[in-house]
């Protein structure tokens, strides 16, 4: 299980403000906190206007790398921003993302190949997010055909089956799970990533929905979730799910987290 820490995202108001004001301390604090909490990658998304994004993303990369050693997840739909940022990273990054949308693959794939990156591939194309499993699998197949063609091995690919809101389609969770299942049958080496919070859009008590969804998604094969590692509830569910599924030998990670006070009742843990 490798966590992509989601907090340095310019579409969040405070982060956007920090990017605009070049507030290094704010960004570095988010980076350190997420690293301490167990993130494997840190997502960096500038979220600024296309003409400023390359400079802003490079600034984020440099700012974060001053305080943490983790590899970064370069998050942008803007090829120019990714190009600039990939030159600034110290460790091989995860590129977020490619998809079947026109222009996206052509622009990003050479970058992934030339810099030997890992890459997130979204199960969608220019027509949006396909409604059913078969159409999403078709997009995944055509994307993997392209990455293989570019000489990128399957184990460097993180498929995002895409999560939509239960409020607007009650099969949203099932479609994501079944897309992972169908993908794994054809491509056993690929990894799976996804954001969690879309699932609960428009529902009351979203956190309850998100954490239940996380547990079920891990059971369905999710191994690189995009989440807030400072969210104690989510981290509890993540560690427990891994253990229950038999992926935590001798329950060591679970026990370690308990000793560090990362799970259980905050005041009681020792």
């Amino acid at each position, binding site marked *: 299980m490798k966590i992509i820490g989601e907090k340095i995202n310019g*579409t969040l108001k405070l982060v956007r403000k920090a990017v605009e004001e070049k507030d290094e301390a704010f960004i570095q604090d988010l980076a350190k906190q997420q690293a301490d909490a167990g993130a494997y990658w840190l997502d960096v998304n500038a*979220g*600024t*206007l*296309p003409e400023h*994004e390359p400079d802003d993303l490079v600034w984020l990369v440099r700012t974060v790398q001053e305080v943490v050693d983790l590899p970064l997840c370069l998050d942008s*739909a*803007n090829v120019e921003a990714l190009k600039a940022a990939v030159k600034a990273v110290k460790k091989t990054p995860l590129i977020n993302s490619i998809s079947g*949308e026109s222009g996206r693959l052509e622009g990003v794939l050479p970058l992934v190949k030339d810099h030997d990156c890992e890459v997130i591939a979204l199960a*969608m194309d*220019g*027509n*949006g*997010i396909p409604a059913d499993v078969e159409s999403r699998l078709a997009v995944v197949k055509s994307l993997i055909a392209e990455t293989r063609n570019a000489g990128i091995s399957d184990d460097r690919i993180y498929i995002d089956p895409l999560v*939509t*809101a*239960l*409020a*607007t389609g009650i099969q949203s969770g099932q479609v994501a799970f079944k897309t992972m299942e169908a993908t794994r049958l054809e491509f056993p080496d690929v990894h799976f990533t996804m954001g969690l919070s879309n699932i609960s*859009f*428009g*529902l*009351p008590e979203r956190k309850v929905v998100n954490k239940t969804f996380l547990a079920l998604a891990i059971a369905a094969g999710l191994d690189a979730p995009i989440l807030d590692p400072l969210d104690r509830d989510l981290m509890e569910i993540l560690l427990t799910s891994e253990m229950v599924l038999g992926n935590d030998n001798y329950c060591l990670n679970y026990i370690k987290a308990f000793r560090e006070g990362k799970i259980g009742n905050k005041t009681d843990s020792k």
Partner: protein
Amino acid sequence: MLVNGFVELKRDEVLETVKGRVEQGDDALKILDDARHAMTVVGDKFQEGTLFLAEMMLSAEIFKEVVTILQPGMDKARPSESIGKIVLATPKGDIHDLGKDIFATLLIAQGFDVHNLGVDVDPSKVVDTVREVKPDFVGFSALITTAFASMKKTTDILISEDLRGSFKLMVGGGVTNSVLKDHVGADFQTIDAMEGVSYCLKTMKEKNQ
């Protein structure tokens, strides 16, 4: 009667009531008007947070079924007058549609004639639709900044084709702000669907005075 049925999401009850009124010879447009009013109440409750999105989606489904039942009666009557026309699109470069579709649902509930062009929409498609439909509003929705360039491009074409003067331009969605509003020369910007609906209603009211 219809209002309660809609708010409590009693689909069968609403459909039975509508069918019953049709059989009694009630005017289809009058029934439709009642259903629209009920949807307005649902929209208000959604805005104040007592009804949730999933419930609003269901009420929109019920509304659609009501329209289907009423359709034969309405075809016989004079064509129904919408209170305003709007063309909606997530412009080329973005494929997010949840916010746009919520906005569309709320507008339909208010009696607007909504031309929802979908996602990743080419400038030419927007321009063609504007020429054909002659809308009162054009709305662009975006969740990510990659749609900004095509928003600007679409607007520039509308200006050069001399179409821009005939409608109000609205931009909405998570990444939109007043900078974008000025950049594309929009008349209105929001990240709140109900605020957008209020703007449309207010504008039509002023127009009809």
